[in-house]
């Protein structure tokens, strides 16, 4: 019975994880294109990727995006969770509103942010112009650095609500007696936060960090809708690069090779992070 149950689960994993991964791995060794005959390419697709400067650009852009968004999402999520952890009138409504960005599909969010950042008709330029802060519109989406800033802003906006909700759930699981005891010992709000809240949040912070790193590594739909990877390659992240190689360059073999590389990078990165984390941070032991 136990084997049957395990077998069912394994079959699901095999069908939805192992088969696609295996298909990608095998496909990455072929020249696969709708307009060329299929042929075995060995490691040529990988060689082309590593030779291409665009892989380096995309890797760098993805890394910078992760470095910019993950800490910001964590900090903002934590701040919002702390605010929501205190009872106040209309708290439920505020929680719903704060969660809203996370519930909006990323592509829709991208279009909305395009409405904010669009150079000639965007809301942000209109506000800045009305306030007299600018005399001509700011080219948010057509200047490389500004386009990256816009992308980062949109990504943080889309991601922080989930972090806030997860951290809030973890906060609400902390026994109230601990705070009462700390208060009796004369600890103030900040001291209690540092000595009680943060240690109890550690496992959830680890989970959220890992999740957000993965989100940054696989970011695609928001960027596709907001900047289309541009201007130039300024917001071309690895996932967008996979899409462009596959569907713009019609080189599915190369796209699969890229996907394999990114999957490998993700596994290595997560394994390294988990090794670096103290064990109690992961399992909540030692409290």
């Amino acid at each position, binding site marked *: 019975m136990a084997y049957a149950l395990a077998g069912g689960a394994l079959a699901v994993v095999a069908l939805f994880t192992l088969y696609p991964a295996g298909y990608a791995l095998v496909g990455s060794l072929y*020249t696969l294109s*709708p*307009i*060329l005959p299929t042929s075995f390419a060995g490691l040529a697709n990988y060689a082309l990727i590593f030779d291409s*400067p665009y892989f380096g650009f995309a890797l760098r852009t993805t890394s910078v995006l992760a470095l910019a968004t993950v800490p910001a999402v964590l900090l903002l999520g934590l701040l919002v969770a702390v605010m929501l952890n205190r009872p106040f009138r209309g708290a439920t409504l505020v929680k719903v509103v704060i969660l809203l960005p996370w519930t909006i599909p990323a592509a829709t969010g991208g279009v909305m942010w395009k409405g904010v950042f*669009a*150079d*000639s*008709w965007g809301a942000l330029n209109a506000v800045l112009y009305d306030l007299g802060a600018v*005399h*001509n519109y700011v*080219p948010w*989406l*057509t*200047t*490389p650095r500004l386009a990256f800033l816009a992308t980062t802003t949109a990504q943080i906006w889309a991601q922080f609500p989930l972090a806030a909700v997860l951290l809030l759930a973890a906060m609400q699981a902390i026994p109230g007696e601990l705070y009462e005891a700390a208060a009796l010992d004369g600890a103030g709000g900040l001291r209690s936060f540092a000595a009680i809240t943060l240690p109890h949040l550690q496992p959830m912070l680890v989970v959220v960090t890992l999740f957000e790193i993965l989100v940054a590594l696989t970011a695609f739909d928001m960027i596709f809708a907001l900047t*289309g*990877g*541009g*201007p*130039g*390659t*300024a917001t071309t992240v690895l996932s967008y690069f996979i899409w*462009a190689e596959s*569907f*713009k*360059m*019609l080189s599915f073999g190369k796209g699969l090779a890229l996907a394999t590389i990114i999957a490998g990078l993700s596994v290595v990165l997560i394994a390294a992070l988990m090794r670096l984390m103290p064990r109690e941070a992961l399992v909540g032991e030692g409290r």
Partner: protein
Amino acid sequence: MGDKVDNRRSEAEWTRREFLKLAGAGAAFAALGGAGVVSLPRAVLAGPKVINLNFTVWSYSIDTIQDNINKFQTTYNNAITVKLNDVPWPQYHETMVNRLSSKTALHVLYNGGDWLPEFARAGWVVPLEDYLPRARTYYAPKIVGYALQDMTYNGKMYGLPYYADITTFQYNAKLLKDKGVAHPPTTWEELTDQAKFLRGKGIESPMAFEFAVGLPTTYDNFTAMMFGRGGEWFDKDLNPIFDQPNSAARQQLTWLADMVKQKLATVLPHETDVVKAMNTGKHVYTVLWNYNLADANNAAVHPLAGQFKAALMPGSTHETQGQCKFYNLTRYAVDQGQETVDGALKFIEYFGGEYKGQYAIAKRWAVEKGLGFGQLPLFEDADVKKSFGQWIDFDMFKLQASKARARRHAVWEGIFGEFARVQLVRAISGEAPVDETIGAMAQKVKELRAQFK
């Protein structure tokens, strides 16, 4: 009470015996009827056969297309029905590649010169002249050169024009005159001088361009400007010449990057943004597909309508790019048999050719939307002249059209175009030096030539 209920049930519901009786009677009736039907002639049996076509376009003026389809269907008494599918313009190429390679049911599609070699070599589309010989004998001599070139691959004509247009240099004539400039620039360098002068007169960024990595038009706009200098991407054997030390492409990209760096030019992500921006009075010059001038001068929509004119493309030769988008018959349609092909040919001819002596659909696009046309008779059509005359000097339009040519198309141009526009935007936005981006494009050509040899 209980009896009443039972009686009612026996009236309303069938017993198994009643059902079997009825089924038996029905089967006997069907058998008799069937025997009678079999004895009828095949034509009567089949009734009027309806040909169903799938027609795929990019998303532009869908209401007008559907209205044209309705008229076509009525003309043929609904014996041919056409289902319209549209795909966003920025994703048209890759979407069609995937649909065609997966043998999606698709009979007629919009195609363009840049994708024709790729689609034709893959066997997804077929030459129109092989199925409609008068395409070559009757229509081809009546089609403007650049349009015919864009519809031709390996010497075969693949379609009839949906529209054929030229890219034009457009400017705000009133603003230019008000600021004290007597005439539009004739070279790009003169444009720089005028732009600097205009900045001194309060026009911060005199030029506005449409460039975005997601838009195929980016490649078109740059090509047209480069043609103004007499340039070309490839030689006759499709070897790259754009990467030569002093090529027109290198000169033009350097000029563009400098203009943007000096903030004399503003880059916008779509032609509609450019038209709106031109109508703010903050810009004087732009380069766009000509039909945008009709929009810019539309008084019902834009505040500065009537102030915009076209001038010859700056540069040494004043050439520009002409192109044609056309109705193309698919291999899938051919595989469905002669009746389907006949239906599709009627549709293509109604839309891109003559019907009762009129190029009705092409003329409608020209008169209502300002789209250019490939059919030479329309250059002399009084209605078209009158309509165009409301937003462009028609003689200037004809002069610029006479200096237009199509690009040389390689089988891998669809892919190269995607790559090139990223590089163009990298250079224009200052993300990478011009030489680096030109080098990257040349390297890509080398790779593609090796792949497709």
